[in-house]
């Protein structure tokens, strides 16, 4: 198991390297420098600025310097906000993003797995269609359309929940953003779960288990659940990535001060340093989450470990 983890870690390194390199060069090669869109600066100040951010160095030198600092955990400076580095801003926003994202992840998995198992066990019966229709909406309707409608209904008309903001971080503030973020993924997970559960329930080893007379409950929970979960688990890596990036728009809609909002602001302000730092951070986080999911996958399926 430890060897497996180590091998996966090794294969993640090129992914990270390519991602960081791509981000770095896309932004550095962008037409126009980071300070172009501000009022024309006096040449000497501009030169100072460029020197301060090492933009006067040859490109490869900038790249190597960036990589070197990244290795030490430094995500680089913001070009606009002078008071905080990228790392500091992320440190401020991360707890909010992780709270919303983590809860949404749990909710998506719980709803998705439960709905999927239900759908597989009661195929093509009334409630299965109702669930399918609800999840279909989740799959197709984008969250920036669902969110305002939910805000109107639950926040304004019924006034059950706050329309947005973080408040004291108590659950009423979390309900809508977490739900909006989780819903499409609950839909995807339930589709995966339903399909794989149906497949597993039709498999021979389930027939063996049923023939042993160990009971329907035990058959589903002990025998079918684990193998049926494998496609779901392999989706969780990408799902964690989608949730993280999906939280960008959810944080914006609900006014949650997470890293997604900083990211949007930085992009709108063309704060190249902040954009680069945030994207790199997101990538690292996503690669890390994928790695964790791979390990979970290996725990579920003994055949994977051998490879």
């Amino acid at each position: 198991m430890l060897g497996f983890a180590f091998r996966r870690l090794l294969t993640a390194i090129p992914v990270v390297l390519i991602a960081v390199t791509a981000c770095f060069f896309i932004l550095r090669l962008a037409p126009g420098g980071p300070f172009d869109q501000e009022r024309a600066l006096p040449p000497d100040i501009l030169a100072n600025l460029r020197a301060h951010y090492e933009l006067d160095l040859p490109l490869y030198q900038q790249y190597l310097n960036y990589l070197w600092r990244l290795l030490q955990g430094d995500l680089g400076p913001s070009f606009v906000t002078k008071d905080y580095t990228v790392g500091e801003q992320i440190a401020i926003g991360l707890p909010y993003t992780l709270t919303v994202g983590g809860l949404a992840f749990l909710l998506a998995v719980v709803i998705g797995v439960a709905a999927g198992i239900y759908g597989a066990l009661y195929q093509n019966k009334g409630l299965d269609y109702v669930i399918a229709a609800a999840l279909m909406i989740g799959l197709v309707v984008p969250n920036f359309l669902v969110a305002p409608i939910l805000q109107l209904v639950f926040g304004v008309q019924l006034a059950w929940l706050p329309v947005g903001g973080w408040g004291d971080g108590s659950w009423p503030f979390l309900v809508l953003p977490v739900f909006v973020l989780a819903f499409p993924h609950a839909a995807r997970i339930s589709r995966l779960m339903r399909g794989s559960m149906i497949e597993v329930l039709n498999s021979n080893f389930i027939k063996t288990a049923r023939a042993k007379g160990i009971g329907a409950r035990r058959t589903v929970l002990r025998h079918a659940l684990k193998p049926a979960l494998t496609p779901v688990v392999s989706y969780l890596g990408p799902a964690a990535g989608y949730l993280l990036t999906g939280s960008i728009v959810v944080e914006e809609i609900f006014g949650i001060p997470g890293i997604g909002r900083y990211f949007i602001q930085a992009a709108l302000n063309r704060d190249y340093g902040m954009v680069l730092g945030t994207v790199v951070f997101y990538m690292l986080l996503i690669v890390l989450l994928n790695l964790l999911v791979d390990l979970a996958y290996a725990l579920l399926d003994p055949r994977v470990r051998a490879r």
Partner: protein
Amino acid sequence: MTSASSSAPLLELTGYSIRFATPDGEVQAVSGLDLTLAEGETLAIVGESGSGKSQCFNGMFGLLARNGRTEGQARLAGADLLALSPKALDAVRGRDMAMVFQDPMTALNPALKIKRQLSETLEVHQGLSRREAEAKSLAMLKRVGIPEAERRMNQYPHELSGGMRQRVVIAMALLCRPKLIVADEPTTALDVTIQAQILELFRELGQEMRTALVLITHDLGVVAGVADRVAVMYAGRIVEEAGVDALFDAPAHPYAAALLASIPRIDRDGGSVEAIPGRPPNLIHPPSGCPFHPRCRFADERCVAERPPLEPVAREGHAIDAGRRVACWHPFAAARAGSAAAAPTPEAVLHG
């Protein structure tokens, strides 16, 4: 063990039918089967795929697909399995009767260790603790001839060979010492040498444990050394039922004769194998009269018009054999006809 209860059969199927609702119509997979099995007896059910031989026992075990329905009665030691609630059926499955499936590669759960899959049966049916159950499971693994059984217990199915896995499946079936084991094509997916070993294992266990065995197979060659009796199924019905020697000696039904002729043999010069012409019948719109008539070279008008009942028949020059029933208007026609005259003896088949 035999004398007291021998009056009532262990398993008794009466008017047993299985139907599947499909978009194209209703499939009559098994039609009005009557069959009995005594304690400790080994019965082979033989037929082509689609003859209903597997579905017959899947239905008894409550393992039919969602669109399947059973009718009639299937009594195991007096209790009608078809009338049991799912819970009551679960109390019987695995304890009083067990099943060994065709493909050992897929019959075991890939995600669970061997010991879990074995011992849970004992935990559920006999209320044993995990430790007791694992000890008994280990003993059973050794009994079915698995080397290094202690190590195997902690392995996953993918780490075992096909023959080894089939032994595990057999051990699993035997754990609760059931009165009846149904083995559905237990050797089909295995190499020839392994096949012989597994059949040998069945024979030993049958003698040792006095367990009744139903051996479902499409291969009459498998039957010869193991079974006491044979029931040949075609299109969801039994067309011939006989003692194994009597059947191999002279098959009464043309289909049984054709199956026998399709076994590769060494005692026949040339060793040619006769394939059965035609295709298995459509079970949504079965043929009129005798279902085998479109493929039977002895068929006449009566066979087309009227379905023959399954009843005892006499062979010329022999007394009526009470244990032998045939559903044919022209029994022993094949035996009289030239080509299939030299039916193989069970021994020849076994060693061939």
